[in-house]
């Protein structure tokens, strides 16, 4: 993974020192809250319902075991012993004291992590396919471009006060695991007609209260031009994005207002201006960064390993885990293993400090000391020798991290919701807990198959409800929590936004409604059809009928 050199280290430690001075000025009253708030937000420090919340970047999802141990120490020393992995490859701590924040940032800097620009109207953490560099279906590892974009965006003098936040996601694989179509800029690698790898540039996607699938602004661009092309987009956005209304300030609103063709004209005109004289990506610098992502020394003998190691295990739970949680690796004899943070009844994305340390130990033992976090709030070991799978499965099982549900109904995304978040209208976590208990049965899970359920506690959509096959949005109705369902959303390479099913349901009715939707799908599905495929074939009406007119009858109104 990327390692800081003296320049990165200096920059991050200078940022910590700067923030330490700012916190001191705030505590003495030299800075008012109005003056201080944008400064703390640009360092990832929010004030939430119970305390300050610190959001830490895990750039493009890559985390070392040493970093995870540092997070565990922070969780124990400064928080309440746990952290929350988010949908943007960040980890959040919920119980932070303002006075401690500079020390935490210094501890993070010591393990080459930071919180810079994890909030604010600037370019946020650059996210990527969590299997980057390892997936069997990948064209090229996108992480060198991720890191170049990360460095380009950090403290960028021109683009740190954009109209609104700005999110970038990259995938080097035709199978999109990074939800690139719902980002301000999404970069999807594919080969052109001559077989050259390049990026499709997608712009203006996003979720929130005005969800949009991004539009292709450029079919194919050579990767070495990507920084300048992003600069052209950022400049057009910085100059012409709306600043009069916070709800209309994202780039998606500008792209929609101008139309993608007019927006492309502006960007291409800007790009023509800068491409001759602008900074090109230095080959030596690129090579330096590329070297950080060199794969580990794989054991060539691994190719001769039994491709489906059972090693005496005749446990259906192991088989289910192999099917759901283990993914093909580009090197023979190795596998990618997903750690599910979605055991029945657990809080999606939360991990206790003790478990962080156990996971770090397992990463050292089984996966070259590295792991990944992904936008579905799970972890991945990306370099596991297949013959180690049974041992690893047992170890993960004792930690409750081997639930065989990756991509299945109980692998639920949930934002922190009203239990933590000051923006939320309703609680997301209890719904996720109910549903994951409801889908606790492995056979049922496997029978239902691929199904994403995403829950947001408000229309800001941190829980990605718009792109869940089943989306659940918490709303406040005169002081009571209600939940609106959407169906048919998808964040993969064929993205779509969910369609609203109907009026909101009280919390107690949500599991039964989901059950009816799933049962309707099972009754309607064709051979090997996923929920999404069935939904796209039959439309919303059959599902609306089973939720709002159970047993085929409309309730009599007295």
């Amino acid at each position: 993974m990327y390692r800081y050199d003296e320049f990165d280290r200096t920059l991050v430690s200078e940022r910590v020192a700067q923030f330490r001075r700012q916190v001191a000025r705030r505590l003495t009253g030299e800075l008012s809250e109005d003056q201080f708030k944008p400064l703390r937000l640009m360092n990832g420090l929010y004030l939430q319902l119970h305390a300050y919340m610190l959001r830490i970047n895990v750039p493009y999802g890559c985390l070392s075991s040493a970093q995870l141990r540092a997070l565990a120490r922070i969780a124990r020393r400064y928080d309440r012993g746990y952290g929350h992995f988010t949908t943007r490859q960040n980890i959040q701590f919920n119980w932070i004291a303002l006075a401690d924040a500079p020390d935490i940032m210094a501890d993070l800097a010591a393990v080459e992590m930071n919180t810079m620009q994890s909030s604010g109207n600037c370019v946020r953490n650059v996210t990527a396919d969590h299997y980057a560099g390892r997936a069997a279906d990948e064209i090229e590892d996108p992480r060198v471009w991720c890191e170049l974009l990360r460095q380009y965006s950090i403290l960028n003098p021109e683009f740190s006060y954009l109209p609104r936040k700005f999110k970038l996601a990259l995938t080097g694989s035709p199978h999109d695991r990074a939800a690139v179509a719902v980002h301000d800029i999404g970069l999807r690698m594919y080969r052109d007609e001559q077989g050259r790898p390049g990026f499709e540039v997608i712009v203006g996607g996003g979720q929130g209260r005005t969800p949009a699938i991004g539009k292709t602004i450029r079919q194919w661009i050579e990767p070495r031009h990507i920084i300048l092309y992003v600069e052209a987009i950022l400049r057009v956005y910085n100059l012409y994005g709306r600043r009069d209304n916070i709800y209309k300030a994202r780039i998606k609103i500008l792209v929609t207002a101008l139309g993608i063709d007019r927006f492309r004209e502006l960007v291409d005109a800007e790009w023509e201006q800068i491409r001759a004289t602008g900074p090109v990506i230095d080959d030596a610098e690129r090579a330096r960064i590329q070297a950080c992502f060199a794969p580990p020394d794989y054991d060539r003998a691994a190719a001769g390993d039994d491709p489906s190691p059972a090693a005496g295990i005749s446990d259906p739970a192991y088989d289910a885990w192999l099917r759901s949680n283990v993914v093909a690796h580009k090197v023979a004899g190795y596998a990618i293993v997903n750690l599910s943070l979605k055991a029945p009844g657990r809080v999606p994305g939360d991990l206790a400090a003790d478990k962080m340390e156990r996971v770090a130990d397992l990463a050292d033992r089984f996966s070259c000391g590295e792991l990944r976090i992904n936008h579905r709030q799970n972890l991945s070991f990306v370099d596991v020798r297949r013959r180690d799978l049974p041992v690893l499965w047992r170890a993960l099982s004792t930690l409750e991290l081997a639930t065989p549900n990756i991509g299945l109904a109980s692998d639920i995304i949930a934002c922190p919701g009203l239990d933590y978040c000051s923006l939320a209208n309703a609680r997301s976590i209890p719904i996720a807990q109910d549903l994951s208990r409801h889908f606790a049965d492995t056979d049922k899970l496997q029978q239902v198959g691929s199904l994403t359920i995403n829950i947001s506690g408000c229309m800001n959509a941190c829980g990605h409800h718009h792109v869940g096959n089943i989306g659940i949005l918490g709303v406040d109705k005169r002081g009571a929590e209600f939940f609106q369902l959407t169906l048919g959303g998808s964040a993969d390479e064929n993205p779509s936004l969910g369609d609203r099913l109907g009026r909101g349901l009280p919390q107690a009715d949500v599991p039964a409604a989901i059950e009816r939707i799933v049962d309707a799908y099972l009754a309607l599905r064709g051979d090997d059809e996923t929920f999404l495929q069935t939904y796209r074939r039959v439309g919303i009406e059959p599902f609306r009928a089973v939720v709002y007119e159970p047993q085929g009858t409309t309730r009599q109104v007295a």
Partner: protein
Amino acid sequence: MTTLIKDGQAAKDIYLRIDGDDPIPDGGALLVSLPVWQDHWQRLTRRPDPIGVVLASHEHPEVIADDLENFAVIALEFPTFRDGRAYSYARLLRDRYGFSGELRAIGDVLLEQLHYMERVGFNAFELAGDDPLAELETARGDFSVWYQGAVDGRRPASVLRQARTSASK
């Protein structure tokens, strides 16, 4: 009360601000709004004293790109510190339109933003506060490493890395 800082020094602001229907005096340096410039440029350019123009945050410098030789100063307004358009304007004025005179940040200019502003080409700031010069020095000292090239000539980390690598060979 604001203090003008120019090229790192406290400076006396010799410019009289002219906007709307303000009368245009016959003598003295003037800093005029864009509409005043557009309405009275012939008269203004006949005067011997220096002229500057103020651009509000919605006024793209493209509209004065052909007039730059007339201006000793261009002042770009930050109506609120959140409005970042002037960072791009400054960069375009320096990089694309070749303006080499004084580029002044006015309005809601915060200490924490100075290093960004210097990097995109501002060399003058109207700052509030008791001792803005001392604060400027503090703000300037915050960072010694930058990832991006910009218009201030400071070399980004990528260039320094390669220079170091070459030197060690």
